[in-house]
């Protein structure tokens, strides 16, 4: 039964799989069954920061409570002994964590211990724990020990990142800095491969791997192939056989893993964007599906008086239950504003309905005493009451999105992000520019220095020929005048030189953006999202380089860009990397993984691409998730050397 259900969502939702795995772990490693009259069991959850990052996008505090967790604590915090309660640990098997766990055992903090390691623990460390358990005479208290293989963070149904805590270790900068040693590179690669391995164990499938040559992605591919191969050969301990395979058994096709390096496309991470989720990530403080806003009170109707505006810090979780978010996270921003308005209106209509019902009830209840009439009214009342929580939830979501969208809109207006977006799209698609780049850079009103830097870098990256020295000097001067730091440019110059040697620079396809007039419909309906002066731009579907590569590989199209990609199949007996793909059929499922970092723009582009194709699924992953600000910082650091 469960297998059939998983086949129906075959390979689609990594989020569901990880959540199910977590819930099973929390249920003392036994599959969780809902029972309405079951006895309560209680436990405490101990995690480290890695565990916290993995759990927080997937399970809310309420859901943890529903699973019987009374307290959830960080491993390296002061914890008091709580008698008679089992403890579930969810930590990475690092030295410090193991030490702390042994300390817990010695201090007899809890009654029984269920140890779960996020990625596989080594034999020696296991013996360390055994030692401590013996010393504390607590061996029987250690009830279960599990390797969970959950070392990745799932943010969406089809998107994951490797980690959040130690992202400097696997950042773009770490991989691309010129002074990296071989051993350091090995460590980084091992970290990445470990997470990818956990990912495929949870997915329950062995992929076919394709990667470009001569990049960090190739190193990852080689190592991953080796690791998968070793595991498959070890028949006793293989993680990919039997009931661990799950839905993989039912889909006859294996998924395709495309490993790309960030360096094939540096323009997209710098790009100004126009879709809701990407904008929130770019402009606001957003990570692990939580957005932190600083609200200044009294923006619209400030009280008359000299009181300064207080800033409220608010944070919102954007979760899968939030239907509005799920529907509109990929929509262009004006559409989002309109939809919020529509939702608000429909909510008000429903609220009026409930109020009307209330008044009818009030009148009728006085006249009649007969029970049949009463039960009729009771039924109406019950339905009204049961629809109330739904209405309240709707209101909460509307408030949430109103706040978030307003914050985003403020940024857009202040920095003229719509202008940047349009201009960059034109640059990237090589259509003629109506305004000169110099004008925009010198314009003091439009955008922060960072925005200007981004624009210029995109221009530089996508230019077929480098601008002449004189032009370059002019631009540099303008940029410095605007307050920019020129270090990223240094790095990009080097990169461009290198990239030119390696292969032709990526082209971004032909596309146009059509401004739909300055006065949008939103303004006409008198909504609170006054988009005055903001262009109502419409995105036309274009394929970013990553999407194009995926398209070629997935549909087995021949293209000079991807023809010489390497081909790995861990299941093949003879492990050699032939460039000749054995599989001639197009793939139904693909996983795109960007080594060196990714962002929501690429993710959204892939989602849009696959929407048109029936029955195909794509998962997007990256070693870290950064927005343009963070990326510029890394480029700047790289350019300093």
């Amino acid at each position: 039964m469960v297998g059939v259900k998983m086949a129906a969502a075959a390979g689609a939702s990594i989020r569901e799989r990880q959540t199910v795995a977590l819930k099973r772990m929390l249920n003392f490693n036994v599959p969780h069954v809902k029972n309405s009259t079951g006895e309560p069991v209680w436990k405490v959850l101990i995690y480290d920061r890695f565990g916290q990052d993995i759990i927080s996008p997937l399970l809310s505090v309420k859901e943890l409570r529903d699973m019987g967790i009374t307290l959830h604590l960080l491993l390296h915090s002061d914890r008091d002994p709580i008698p008679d309660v089992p403890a579930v640990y969810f930590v990475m098997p690092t030295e410090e964590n193991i030490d702390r766990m042994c300390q817990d055992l010695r201090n007899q903090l809890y009654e029984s211990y269920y140890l779960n390691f996020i990625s596989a623990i080594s034999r020696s460390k296991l013996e360390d724990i055994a030692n401590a358990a013996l010393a504390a005479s607590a061996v029987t208290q250690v009830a279960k020990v599990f390797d969970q293989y959950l070392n990745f963070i799932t943010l969406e149904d089809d998107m994951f990142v490797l980690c959040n805590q130690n992202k400097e270790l696997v950042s773009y900068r770490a991989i691309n800095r010129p002074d990296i040693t071989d051993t350091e590179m090995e460590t980084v690669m091992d970290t990445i491969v470990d997470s990818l391995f956990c990912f495929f164990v949870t997915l329950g499938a062995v992929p076919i791997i394709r990667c470009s040559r001569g990049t960090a992605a190739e190193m990852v591919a080689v190592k991953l192939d080796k690791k998968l191969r070793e595991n498959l050969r070890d028949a006793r301990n293989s993680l990919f056989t039997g009931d661990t395979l799950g839905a993989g058994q039912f889909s006859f096709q294996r998924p395709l893993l495309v490993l790309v390096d960030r360096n094939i496309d540096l323009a997209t991470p710098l790009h100004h964007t126009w879709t809701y989720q990407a904008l929130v990530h770019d402009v606001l403080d957003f990570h692990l599906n939580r957005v932190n806003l600083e609200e200044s009170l009294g923006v619209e109707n400030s009280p008359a008086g000299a009181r300064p505006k207080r800033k409220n810090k608010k944070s919102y979780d954007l979760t899968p239950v939030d239907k509005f978010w799920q529907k509109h996270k990929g929509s262009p921003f004006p559409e989002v504003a309109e939809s919020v308005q529509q939702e608000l209106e429909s909510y008000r209509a429903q609220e009026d309905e409930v109020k009307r019902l209330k008044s009818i009830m009030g009148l009728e209840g006085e006249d009649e005493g007969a029970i049949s009439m009463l039960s009729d009214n009771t039924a109406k009342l019950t339905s009204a009451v049961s629809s109330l929580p739904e209405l309240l939830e709707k209101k909460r979501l509307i408030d949430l999105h109103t706040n978030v969208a307003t914050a985003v809109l403020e940024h857009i207006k202040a920095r003229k992000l719509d202008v940047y977006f349009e201009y960059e799209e034109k640059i990237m698609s090589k259509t003629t520019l109506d305004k000169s780049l110099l004008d925009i850079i010198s314009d003091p009103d439009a955008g922060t220095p960072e925005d200007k830097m981004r624009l210029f870098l995109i221009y530089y990256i996508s230019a077929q020929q480098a601008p002449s020295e004189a032009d370059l000097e002019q631009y540099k001067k303008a940029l410095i005048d605007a307050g920019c730091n020129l270090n990223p440019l240094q790095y990009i110059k080097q990169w461009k030189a290198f990239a030119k040697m390696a292969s032709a620079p990526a082209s971004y396809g032909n596309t146009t953006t059509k401004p739909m007039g300055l006065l949008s419909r939103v303004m006409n309906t008198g909504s609170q999202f006054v988009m005055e002066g903001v262009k109502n731009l419409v995105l036309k579907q274009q394929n970013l380089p990553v999407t194009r590569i995926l398209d070629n590989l997935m549909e087995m199209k021949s293209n000079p860009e991807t023809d010489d990609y390497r081909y790995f199949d861990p299941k093949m007996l003879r492990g050699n990397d032939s460039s000749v793909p054995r599989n001639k059929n197009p793939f139904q499922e693909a996983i795109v993984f960007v080594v060196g970092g990714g962002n929501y723009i690429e993710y959204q582009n892939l989602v849009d691409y696959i929407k048109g194709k029936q029955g195909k699924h794509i998962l997007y992953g990256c070693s870290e998730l950064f927005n343009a600000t963070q990326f510029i910082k890394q480029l700047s650091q790289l350019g300093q050397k």
Partner: protein
Amino acid sequence: MAVDITLLFRASVKTVKTRNKALGVAVGGGVDGSRDELFRRSPRPKGDFSSRAREVISHIGKLRDFLLEHRKDYINAYSHVMSEYGRMTDTERDQIDQDAQTFMRTCSEAIQQLRTQAHKEMPSQQVKEHRSVVLDFIEDYLKRVCKLYSEQRAIRVKRVVDKKRLSKLEPEPHTKTRESMSSEKVSQNPSQDSEEKPVTEEYPEKVPAESQPELGTWGDGKGDDELSPEEIQMFEQENQRLIGEMNSLFDEVRQIEGRVVEISRLQEIFTEKVLQQEAEIDSIHQLVVGATENIKEGNEDIREVRTFGPPRPPQCGTKSGWPDHLAGAQPPGLPT
């Protein structure tokens, strides 16, 4: 998918033990260790909080099992097909309800006690929080079990109320056959309704008034089969009134009968007389017709006399112009 390495862990424990023995390290290995463990268990405060919490949980569990066990009987007894074994009398049901209520009350009191005690003791912040969440869980469990009970109860109350409403419309209470005839009752009611409309209008008002106190106090053990004395009295009074009405109606009908008989007799007489009159009128009519003829003839004779003079007796055998019948006759009134 997660991999269970518990066995691996146990193996590691053995490895470490043997290694320690080999190295001569006397840290908690072997028999002493297990005895240490046992000793460590008992002096450790078991925490009467958790043992009492578990007691409460087991109590609630017993209540839940009890309710589930008898649930079928509780609800099923309302079907018309009754077997001896499945039937539960109302007293039994009331008993169940009462027991369940007292049980629930004691459980929630126990939870409250635990809560206050947990607050009084000064454990660490974490332990306090843990305990309060545990108590929340127990309360939630109790609520879920109470839901079982309240669902059953709601069904029962609804059925009783419906039944009371229907049963009030029958004129005579049938104590024994009521339940089996309740299906027939429904078909009877529409016909009865039309006859006893003025009567039934009193009842809807009485039903809510009566059912309210009855819903509250199930303790008097009354079923629908028997009627309370007030009801009996009420029925008797009504019976009396009905009989009186019937009698008066009957008298009126008699009177009307007598009058109708009289009227028919008078009508007979009337008819006779009319027939007599008809005969007389006929004879009068004949006479009048004859008289009219005579007068007519007389008038003609007079006219003739006037025009032709008196009639002469016939001399020379010539005929006079007088008609024969007048020839010999003396004209009346003329002197001879």
